[in-house]
């Protein structure tokens, strides 16, 4: 059993490396003389590596399933990793429809970030509580991630469109928002860097604090900027928190999570400032020249097509299968718990997107912004609702 787990971990690691190398080959296609849509040496190597990486990650998935006895989509690590895998899968599908190399340069790093992000969560295999023991759980979770992953490809294409099309000669609201989008990606990277660093240092600080009439304790793996409300530090030789979180922050781990968020934002800001200092211009402005030979209307088309394909898959997984499972497990198909509501919000949002596009002619830049917002909603549901708003679904 232990061997299977190790093997599974190695497969995942290999997949990560392959995606990383593939990204560099996709970057190499920028310098190819030929126009987008034709295959070159670089692009052939890049997509082959991507596919190999995907196969390796599938190996991870199967071996982990064998080891745990259930589909590995049941805790945050497994679920988020699977989402990354589906993102690569969706990219491969869209790639073979449009052969847009530049898409790989954006979609793969996003997948890499997501997989790295996943590995920050506890990785041990965990048992299933009775309500999660259902085939509908697997069916629901896998289809919903596939749907969201396809919608994420739409975000990648939309982002490229915006970086290419937005006028960078003058500063405007649009350039600022675009930088904010790029900054949030950097903040995710910041989270991974800072967590890995302090993990390697074996940092730990334990707090005690009153919680629901009892004394609870919480372990910080990052230096406490924000401590628990009315908490006392137990570990010696650790910094005291700069401030305490307000009392309405609910949950045993609320303060620790908030502290992690702060660290991510600060590290992200550091990365952003360094990048600006090196580039001496807005990050989007620095990327823009690399996109010269990419056709805008093709990007627009890809972004829309991904929504057109992803929306039905998402509806099926995120609403219909979710309702069937909820009916089986909790005898109510809909209960207005935050995770469900955010799935509904996502669905409403993309319905609005489709109507605006089909009936009101929202193409190009507007459509690209909508793709970005849609992805923000999906990420909010995946991460923030789990971490901040606890509900029936919160695995962690």
């Amino acid at each position, binding site marked *: *059993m232990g061997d299977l787990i190790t093997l599974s971990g190695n497969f995942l690691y290999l997949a990560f490396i392959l995606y990383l190398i593939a990204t560099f080959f996709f970057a190499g296609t920028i310098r190819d003389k030929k126009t987008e849509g034709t295959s070159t040496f670089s692009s052939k190597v890049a997509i082959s590596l991507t596919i190999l990486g995907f196969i390796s990650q599938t190996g991870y998935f199967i071996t982990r399933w064998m*080891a*745990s*006895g259930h589909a590995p989509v049941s805790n945050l690590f497994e679920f988020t990793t699977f989402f990354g895998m589906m993102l690569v899968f969706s990219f491969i599908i869209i790639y073979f429809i*449009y052969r847009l190399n530049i898409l790989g340069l954006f979609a793969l790093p996003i997948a890499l970030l997501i997989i790295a992000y996943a590995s920050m969560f*506890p990785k*041990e*295999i*965990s*048992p299933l*509580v*009775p*309500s999660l*023991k*259902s085939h*509908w759980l697997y069916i629901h979770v896998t289809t919903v991630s596939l749907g969201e992953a396809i919608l994420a490809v739409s975000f990648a294409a939309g982002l490229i469109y915006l970086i290419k099309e937005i006028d960078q000669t003058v500063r405007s609201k649009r350039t600022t928002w675009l930088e904010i989008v790029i900054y949030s990606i950097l903040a995710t990277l910041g989270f991974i860097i800072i967590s890995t660093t302090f993990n390697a240092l074996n940092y730990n600080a334990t707090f005690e604090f009153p919680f629901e009439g009892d004394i609870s304790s919480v372990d910080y793996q990052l230096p406490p900027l924000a401590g628990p409300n009315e908490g006392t530090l137990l570990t010696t030789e650790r910094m005291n928190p700069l401030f305490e979180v307000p*009392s*309405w922050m*609910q949950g045993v781990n609320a303060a620790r999570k908030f502290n992690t968020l702060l660290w991510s934002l600060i590290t992200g800001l550091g990365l952003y400032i360094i990048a600006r200092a090196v580039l001496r211009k807005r990050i989007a402005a620095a990327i823009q020249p690399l996109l010269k030979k990419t056709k805008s*209307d*093709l990007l627009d*088309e890809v972004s*829309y*097509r991904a929504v*057109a*394909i992803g*929306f*039905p898959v998402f*509806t*099926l997984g995120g609403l*219909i299968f979710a*309702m069937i499972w909820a*009916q*089986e*497990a909790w*005898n109510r*198909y809909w*209960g*207005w*718990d*935050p995770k469900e*509501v*955010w799935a*509904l*919000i996502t669905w*409403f*949002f993309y*319905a*609005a997107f489709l*109507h*605006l596009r*089909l*009936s*009101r*002619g*929202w193409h190009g830049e507007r459509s690209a912004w909508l793709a970005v917002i849609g992805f923000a909603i999906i990420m909010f549901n995946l991460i923030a*609702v789990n971490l901040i*708003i606890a*509900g029936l679904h919160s695995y962690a």
Partner: protein
Amino acid sequence: MREIKCDACHHINREGTELCESCGKPLVEKQQAEGKETKKLLNMRYDGSSRRSMTYNKSVVDRVWNFFSSVKVGVTLIVITLIASAVGTILPQQMYIPQNVQPEVHYKDQYGLIGQIYYQLGLHELYSSWWYMILIALIGISIIIASIDRVVPLYRALKNQKPTRHTTFIQRQRLHSKTDDVTDADKHTFISNLKRMRYKVTEDNGHVLAEKGRFSRWGPYVNHVGLIIFLLGALLRFVPFMYIDDFVWVREGETVVVPDTNGEYFIENKDFIIETYGDSEEDTRFKEALENQSGPIAKNFQTNAVIYRNVETVVGAEPQLEKFKEDSILVNHALKFDGFALYQTSYQLNEFKSMSFIIHETNDADETELASFKVDLTNPAEEYQLDNGFRVMIDQYFPDYYIDDGEPRSQTKNPKNPAFVFLVYPPDSSEPEVSFAGIGRNVDASGENQYKVGLQDFEVRDVTGLTVRKDYTLPILGLGGIIFMIGVIQGMYWQHRRVWIHPKNNGLWLAAHTNKNWFGIKKDIEKAIMKTNINMVVDQEQEEQELQKQQEQNK
């Protein structure tokens, strides 16, 4: 009704028609695509057929109709609902706060001023508020009216697909090209290539229409019908007969009537099972995760149940039970029969079933048994005739004993903490001694009792809590869901593509239109004209945009 006669083909069109339904020639001056600056291209929405909301706007009915048929209004409603839904997740809804607290106190205590405002605005029950319901209803109305407003012209447009089109129509399509000299062989190759790509080809006097995926145009209407059916299904929840939600406790070994079945069905709890992780061999794989948890993790809750049917038809007579179905009820596995479903939702471990007492002399240190009796706690007898001439009567029974202001009371009717006031009649005596006995309690109220009642033994059993559901709306919701999915896939994964071939002297004019995915139709045409000298179509919209861009840069 005003009618419009086409000056090219003399076809009579309905009021409001923009492109002649027969030949496609524009009938109005300003015929251009919504939201696009181009003057050149035709607005091909519903092929220019007359739409009610675009034609009339006099009466109140017209105005209401026009309001709801606007996509702008529809999208606005969706966005408002979306934002409202998000607001409902800022703080937990009332159903997710602890059951035993006052909401108005809870929100204020836990979340301060924000919580108080949230509560006062009624946001703690947002999803069942009247205004949220109205929003959903308005979306429903909007879907219905907008769909009818468009499905009529769409039907008229798709019914009349003629190969012959006016030259203006051909020239003002987004995809268009002219080729001066085309051999019959080339034209033939082109058409047969299109056919190979599953285009349906109709020909009329050299004019050709190749068409594919027409059915996808109905997709949005099919999916909207699905949505409406779903909404109606959800609404039917409020009709009493359609939906039953009840709950029943069943003790191990007991058979009770299933509520809301009019005494027709009974359920027996043969055994209730609870399992946690770590007990079995194969759970070792979860060792690490289990060690990181403070408490045990539940693995299974299960009731082994038998359903009986009452075959006695006389009302009021003793029921006659016949075994109907035997199955286990698990979380995620309900027991279903005759439209009912029983769900495993709750349990109570180790409820007392019976208690055995002995009687001994108060000052006998060995507590030698003089007589003994057993009380069935769910159905205790009033009087017990015992050995050696003893007699015991139950004066008071507290199934769930506690002290309220010095007074003994029972918290519930379930024997969770049973206690008794016994009247013990010694042999040949008619004067009883009063004795109080319970778990770990044995009180002699008078202090003068000669005999004492002592607890000797007890039996326990588990109780299962089952939710009883009957929901006739589920099939309707399912149907709505299926129709919605069919409609969305139909409209999303296929597109309606049309290619027109218009003979012109020795050559031909080409025009093409699709409702979406222009990339795809261009690819089709590229493939179909390969090895012919027919010119590839030009994307006139793109051309125009690029021209505009250049002009702006030149400024």
